[in-house]
């Protein structure tokens, strides 16, 4: 008995040390100069916490070694093999796995015989948050990897949404059950139903949310996986789970708020309403004609430009055009042109998506600027090149009070001297809102696959 207490004391001291390392790690992860070190700190913290926990194992060592080794192999394999363009869905997938682990922990704790009312509450909350994180993340994964095409409006989606709303009273019921059970003597079968309902609810939660809103959803699910871990920590009376889980919860929450602000919408509006179909009433009044341009002509204009702003969007990721974009940027710089990249926070499918792609293509990160930095001087830019971005450069956001995206901060490329828009076709963006940018006097449309179009410009430069 004495040695048991000693082990627990040692564990708790190591947990405190590892909590400190997690805190330092996540702080350093938030600054460019220290980010790599921060990640090492947090990995070290994880290693220490896991290693010391193994001292007090109550489960079969075979289960532990089997699980860890298999998990390490699978996780490492995915992490090493994944293409940078597939990072959003991979983050969603890993996030779901973390949530699933907490879901299973709470499930297992349910079978402990002497659970108090408070423990029961914590078990149900952990199951709920972890389960929603798991199945919600899997749906996010399906949407991001474009394997899942189902969205808002389909009857299947509507049924799933109703399960999500049904799950909330169910949660209250299972929390209140220990008290109710004594009066009503409810059979224990409700627990299995609750497990299933939670998982279906997570599907219904994410299913109606569209691709363009994914940055918000991923951040939120990220936050939820942390909160679930923190609740599991309360359940198991483990302080490092609480600290680490809360830090993740907080960082996910911050990202969620940054993303929502960049869309000028509330989190509730993004999750539960989506863009209203009001856009159809605004549409149809577009006047003027679209002016196409060839890659050769685009090259001639670019050759004489003294400043160029490149604004990438999800289309760049789809076309895998980041490398050829970097090549064009370098050729322009060699030609004496000042090149900047304007990155909108919600461009792409996850927070910082464009930054990762351009970093992969070796674009120096000091060339990347945020809307607030480029907008004030944008009228001195000779050419703004929009690559597969749409809503984030839509002037309706500043000019048309009736537009669904009115008020959203955008990169105001329409104020540049010339705008090139690279686009596959004339379809509207995710929000389904017409983009008057395409009809502006100073806009030229370069139709086709972004990678091919820029490749042609690059070829012209080399000739």
């Amino acid at each position, binding site marked *: 008995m004495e040695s048991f207490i000693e082990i627990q004391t040692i564990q708790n001291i190591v947990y405190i040390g590892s909590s400190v390392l997690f805190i330092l790690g996540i702080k350093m*992860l938030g600054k*460019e100069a220290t*980010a790599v070190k921060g990640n090492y700190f947090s990995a070290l913290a994880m290693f220490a916490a896991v290693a010391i926990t193994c001292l007090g194992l109550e489960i079969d060592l075979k289960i532990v070694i089997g699980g860890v080794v298999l998990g*390490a192999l699978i996780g490492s394999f995915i*992490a090493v093999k*994944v293409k940078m363009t597939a990072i959003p869905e991979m983050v969603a997938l890993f996030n779901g796995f973390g949530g699933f682990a907490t879901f299973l922990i709470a499930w297992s704790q349910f079978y402990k015989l002497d659970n108090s009312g408070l423990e029961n509450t914590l078990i149900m909350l952990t199951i709920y948050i972890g389960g929603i994180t798991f199945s919600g993340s899997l749906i996010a994964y399906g949407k991001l990897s474009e394997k899942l095409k189902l969205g808002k409006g389909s009857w299947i989606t509507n049924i799933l949404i109703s399960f999500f709303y049904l799950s909330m009273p169910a949660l209250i019921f299972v929390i209140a059950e220990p008290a109710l059970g004594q009066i009503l003597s409810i059979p224990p079968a409700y627990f299995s139903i609750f497990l299933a309902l939670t998982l279906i609810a997570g599907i219904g939660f994410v299913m109606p949310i569209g691709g363009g809103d994914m940055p918000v959803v991923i951040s939120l699910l990220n936050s939820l996986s942390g909160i679930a871990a923190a609740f599991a*920590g309360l359940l198991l009376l483990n302080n490092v789970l609480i600290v680490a889980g809360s*830090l993740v919860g907080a960082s996910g929450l911050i990202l969620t708020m940054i993303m929502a602000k960049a869309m000028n919408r509330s989190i509730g509006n993004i999750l539960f309403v989506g863009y209203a179909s009001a856009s159809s009433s605004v549409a149809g009044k577009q006047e003027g004609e679209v002016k196409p341009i060839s890659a050769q002509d685009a090259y001639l204009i670019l050759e004489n430009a003294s400043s160029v702003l490149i604004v990438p969007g999800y289309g760049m990721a789809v076309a895998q055009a980041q490398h050829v974009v970097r090549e064009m940027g370098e050729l322009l710089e060699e030609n004496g042109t000042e090149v900047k990249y304007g990155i909108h926070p919600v461009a792409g499918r996850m927070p910082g998506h464009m930054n990762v792609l351009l970093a992969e293509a070796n674009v120096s990160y000091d060339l990347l600027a945020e809307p607030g930095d480029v907008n004030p001087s944008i009228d001195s830019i000779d050419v703004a090149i929009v690559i597969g971005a749409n809503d984030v450069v839509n002037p309706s956001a500043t000019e048309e009070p009736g537009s669904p995206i009115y008020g959203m901060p955008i990169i105001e490329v329409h104020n540049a001297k010339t705008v090139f828009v690279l686009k596959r076709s004339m379809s509207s963006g995710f929000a389904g809102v017409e983009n008057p940018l395409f009809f502006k006097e100073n806009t030229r449309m370069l139709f086709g696959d972004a990678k091919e179009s820029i490749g042609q410009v690059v070829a012209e430069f080399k000739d």
Partner: protein
Amino acid sequence: METYILLGFVLLLSIFLGLELIAKVPSTLHTPLMSGANAISGIALVGALMLTAGSHLQGWLAFLAILFASINVFGGYLVTNRMLSMFKKK
């Protein structure tokens, strides 16, 4: 009960600390921060290791929890590191 109040206090303070620490993250680091935080949420692995395996079902639950948390931990840290190594200033 007192333990829970104390731990609940730790939880709240940690959330506030987290909010303060990351409030001004540059957009370049949004993805690495998210993926790094994601790896940290694999701390559920510690919880999974604390489980007991009384019944057959509980043994399986523990195994699966360890497996999925490990995927999260190893995959999360590796991919964050891979991503961060690409961020360069020339």
